């Protein structure tokens, strides 16, 4: 069918899902949920259709549709260009998995949910997806803002809906407040443009932005950046993220972490390269470098805090901070390099390609990991790794897919995480050869930080996978876990397949990246630059001397690995494969129990000591001595790592504001003559001021 009717189809699906889940919930909550997820699935498929139609269609194609006139003061419209389509694709791909995974999960996780809650969840899920999809397709500021807030609101509902728990409510509150603060900044940035343009649609804003003077332009950019950063969970605006994401149902966490943050990236790109971009010449110096710096910090700090988490889902949430940082490194580089002379254009394309590809990759593997964590959660109802273990024998599919995701997110070949980080590295190297002096050093430094991030991520996921799935079960929860239902597995397999495909044959994805790269950079498209040597080979034109830089072929590496593995498998069988016996793990002769296994805390301890300065770890050890001080009955150890930004900034501000308002409120004596005095005083002051005024 025709692509033009796609958006309305999406709207129909999501809308129907939302309403039906409300109506059907009266009869049967389960039915409502099933229908809601079905609608979401079809909406997502429609979304894929639309985006592919635009991405693979004739170059420079933009799908524009007017929306009904809702507000007399604004013309609402949809306009799907390459960038929109690409993000729509990312959203829809993950949404498919979530929709497949969702119903079984909700049933397994909270079988006793009331129909009201189920209705709310079905409604919110569809609204959430719909808002995200149409946010990317928005052709005017008002639609954008409405979808933006609708997205926040729906995800808030999903966060607080998960269970009747004060913790969730607090997480939701923090989330909403941060998001609202961000929206306030966005409002100013947008309205400053709309008031200049006299209209709300992006075309008018673009035209109005041409006339801006540099100072205003930069101010607006940083306002917008602040707004989006609050949503993307960039350090130090990240505090809400590790609280809110884990609180939601797992497939929603997958959507929030994998997709919702990317919408903020979309906003940044839209503002920097499209709306606010100057007519000619490179972007203002301060933009790109700020983004690069912010990205690097987020990447390193995100993974460092992730390392010390023992709550599986919170750990994953912190990794989203890290990956957003990696994406922003690419974005920042693209901003720096754009419209630079010489090979700058090509390099900018490489950087932007890296960022966009990592957006997709992260969506895939983070979605996969959250779904994996979800099936662990719904089978054990435990999020703390220390109480898990030995699940690999009990839920092999989940374990295998989780391992796949872990390898991918650790940026290890031959999976997709490595590809985008490789491109980022190449972009960094290329710009390091271009920028001499301190600038170059900064770039190299962030390259080193990127490497550090990769290493730490690997460490973190060895811990996450090992402690959760390997060794012996530490508690009955883990002991009696069983494999997740097939529909959940199916959802995970879908994303796992994406990870492998994007890792082994990334060249074919470049075709999708052509449209966004060209209509942002107006330069050579991704496939022209990166897959110049055919879809099987990724290559980067780095040197200004023109030699065809570095090239790798993921496909070839994968093939080599498989071949060698086959050989090694034969080797491993040995001369006499028959001689195999099973024995307990060797623990210096003692009978091994789960107590022997390394805990997550113990695993991360060395790194905690190495990075003590950043962690401010708090530990308390209480010893119960039995009579004599040399014999302990019990030793209780509690340690935690506090998030600096949270304790140093947020708690402080919160406390101060609360204290201040308490103090002010305490001042008020309910005596009526005071009331009268205020009225009289107001009159006096007003009279005097007006007297002075003339």
């Amino acid at each position: 069918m025709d692509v033009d009717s796609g958006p309305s189809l999406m709207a129909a699906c999501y809308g129907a899902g939302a309403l039906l889940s409300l109506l059907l919930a009266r009869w049967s909550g389960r039915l409502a949920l099933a229908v809601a997820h079905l609608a979401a699935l079809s909406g997502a498929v429609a979304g894929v259709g639309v985006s592919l139609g635009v991405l693979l269609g004739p170059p420079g194609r933009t799908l524009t549709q007017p929306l009904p006139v809702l507000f007399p003061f604004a013309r609402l419209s949809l306009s799907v260009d390459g960038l929109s389509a690409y993000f729509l694709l990312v959203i829809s791909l993950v949404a498919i998995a979530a929709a497949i995974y969702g119903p079984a999960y909700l049933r397994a996780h909270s079988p006793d949910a009331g129909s009201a809650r189920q209705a709310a969840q079905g409604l919110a899920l569809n609204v959430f997806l719909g808002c995200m999809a149409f946010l990317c397709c928005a052709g005017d500021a008002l639609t954008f803002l409405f979808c933006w807030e609708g997205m926040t609101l729906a995800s808030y509902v999903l966060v607080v809906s998960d269970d009747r728990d004060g913790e969730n409510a607090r997480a939701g509150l923090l989330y909403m407040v941060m998001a609202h603060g961000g929206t306030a900044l966005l409002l100013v940035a947008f309205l400053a443009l709309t008031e200049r343009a006299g209209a709300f649609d992006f075309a008018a804003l673009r035209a109005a932005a041409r006339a801006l003077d540099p100072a205003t332009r930069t101010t607006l950019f940083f306002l917008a950046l602040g707004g989006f950063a609050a949503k993307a969970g960039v350090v130090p605006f990240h505090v809400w993220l590790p609280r809110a994401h884990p609180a939601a149902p797992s497939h929603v966490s997958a959507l929030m972490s994998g997709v919702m943050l990317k919408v903020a990236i979309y906003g940044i790109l839209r503002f920097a390269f499209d709306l606010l971009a100057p007519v000619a010449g490179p972007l203002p110096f301060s933009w790109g470098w700020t983004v690069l710096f912010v990205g690097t910090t987020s990447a390193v700090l995100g993974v460092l805090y992730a390392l010390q988490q023992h709550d599986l889902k919170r750990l994953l949430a912190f990794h989203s901070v890290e990956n957003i940082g990696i994406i922003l490194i690419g974005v920042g580089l693209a901003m720096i390099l754009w419209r630079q002379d010489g090979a700058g254009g090509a390099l900018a394309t490489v950087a932007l390609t890296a960022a966009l590809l990592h957006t997709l990759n992260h969506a895939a593997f983070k979605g996969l990991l959250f779904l994996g964590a979800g099936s662990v959660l719904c089978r054990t109802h435990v999020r703390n790794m220390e109480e898990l273990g030995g699940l690999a024998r009990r839920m092999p599919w989940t374990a295998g897919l989780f391992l796949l995701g872990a390898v991918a997110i650790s940026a290890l070949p031959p999976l997709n995480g490595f590809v985008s980080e490789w491109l980022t590295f190449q972009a960094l190297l290329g710009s390091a050869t271009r920028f001499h002096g301190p600038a170059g050093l900064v770039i190299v430094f962030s390259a080193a930080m990127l490497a550090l991030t990769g290493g730490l991520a690997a460490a973190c996921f060895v811990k996450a996978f090992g402690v959760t799935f390997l060794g012996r079960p530490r508690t009955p929860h883990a002991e009696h876990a069983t494999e997740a239902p097939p529909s959940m597995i199916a959802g995970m397999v879908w994303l796992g397949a994406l990870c492998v495909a994007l890792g082994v044959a990334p060249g074919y994805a470049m075709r999708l990246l052509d449209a966004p790269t060209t209509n942002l950079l107006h330069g050579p498209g991704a496939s022209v630059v990166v897959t110049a040597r055919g879809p099987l080979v990724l290559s980067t034109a780095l040197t200004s001397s023109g030699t065809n830089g570095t090239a790798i072929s993921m496909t070839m590496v994968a093939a080599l690995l498989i071949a060698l593995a086959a050989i090694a498998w034969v080797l491993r069988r040995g001369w006499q494969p028959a001689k195999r016996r099973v024995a307990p793990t060797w623990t210096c002769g003692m009978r091994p129990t789960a107590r022997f296994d390394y805990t997550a805390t113990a695993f991360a301890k060395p790194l905690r000591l190495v990075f003590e300065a950043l962690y401010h770890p708090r530990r308390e050890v209480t010893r119960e001595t039995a009579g004599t001080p040399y014999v302990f009955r019990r030793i209780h150890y509690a340690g935690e790592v506090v998030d600096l930004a949270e304790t140093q900034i947020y708690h402080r501000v919160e406390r101060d504001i609360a204290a201040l308002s308490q103090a002010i409120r305490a001042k008020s004596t309910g005596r009526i003559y005071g009331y009268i005095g205020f009225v009289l005083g107001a009159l006096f002051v007003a009279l005097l001021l007006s007297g002075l005024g003339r």
Partner: protein
Amino acid sequence: MAETLLWVLPLVPTVTALVMLTTRDRRILSAIDVGGSAILLALTLVLAREVAQGGPRALGVLRIDDLGLVFLLLLVVLTLAVSIYTVGWLEQAVAVGNMKPELLRSYFALVHAFVATMVVTVLADNLGVLWIAMEGTTITSAVLIGYHGHHHGLEAAWKYIIVTTIGISFGLFGTVLVYAAAAAVHVGAGAGAMSWSAIMKVAPTLDPGIVRIGFIFVMVGYGTKAGLAPMHLWLPDAHSQAPTPVSALLSGVLIKCALLGIIRFQTIAAAACGPAFPAQVLLVFGLTSVVVATPFILAQHDIKRLLGYHSVEHVGIIALGLGFGGAVGTYGALLHVVNHGVTKALAFFAAGKAIARYGTRDMRVIRGLLAVAPIGATLLMLAALSLAGVPPFSIFVSELMVLRAGIGYGHFVAIAIFLAMVVVIFAGLLHHVGAMVFGEPTATASREPESWSPLLGMMVLAAMMILLGLTIPVSFDRLLRRATEIIVD
């Protein structure tokens, strides 16, 4: 037709009030109550159509133009909603013993008398009549506030009547001054010299100095009634003590009527001494209100006081819109008048039900409402979100307009302060309401099923709230535009 309606409209609630004095039966009273409000609404709609077609109409001291119509529509819609809500609310209140059955009829009668005075306030063309009606609202509502009869109620009522009467008397003084200025240019004094429409004709020729002082007196005077800081102190007391339906009327309509008075004088002042002067005054008072309300919202335990302070903030926002001025700002302000009226009434209704369930107004006791009364809790949450300015609810749109005006005219400092406060208030409000809605319900909470009539009343308002958040109907838009033109010509 329309002219006759002008004098019929105030009569409807008056008659209703009188009829009510004849019976004691609660059901009959409620029926009359709803009926009267419905008739009022119907007649108003007729009048609205007349005005939309034939323009403003005048009859003696009364006059209806699009500006008045905006407020009149809000008034009658809320009155009907209140009547519907009251049916179930009263049932419960009588059962608990908050309302003495023998006093019911006087309660209903007073409510309608209150409505009648407000109708006159909105329809008044003669500034003197405006003042008289305004004082009338004070007296009637003061009695209603003190209705429960315990000394807290009386304290609130006393503060209310004293403070607002002072304010009103300042308003009268301002009126006198403007009248003096007008009488000076008119050939001879007389009722004509006090009619707003007549004054507007000659406004540019008025003595700016005296109008200036007059406007300041009116601003402070009617501002007191409108609950602008720092004259707002009576407001939280009154709102927290009044019976819930009355709180809804106070917050939803009454303070808006006072604003209408201010707007009338603003137009005169703008014509006489340039639009800059009244705009500045409004701006200052508006910003003060927003800032002053914030800490009291954050550190509040009484839910009705919370909503009261919230009204202070929103009146401040309206004043800001008028102060930013221009077509956009004024349009936004008028839209906000309606949006806030509807939303705040809804909030009071939902809060009232919660209070009834838990038998307290202390938000630290009200917990887990969602588990006890899902629909009511959802509505409360929606109202809170809307009050906090989240789309797709109505208040977001009007705040957006106000912001547009502010940014468009370059009031960046004001905008910065305003936005900061809005975010903080958002945090505070969501914190309070979230704590009430979620979590484990308190043991003392009554788990009886939710009765239909309050839900119906709330549903109606919620529907309007969401509708106005998603779109502005064309006819309503035209009305608002014409009203805006009256203020900024």
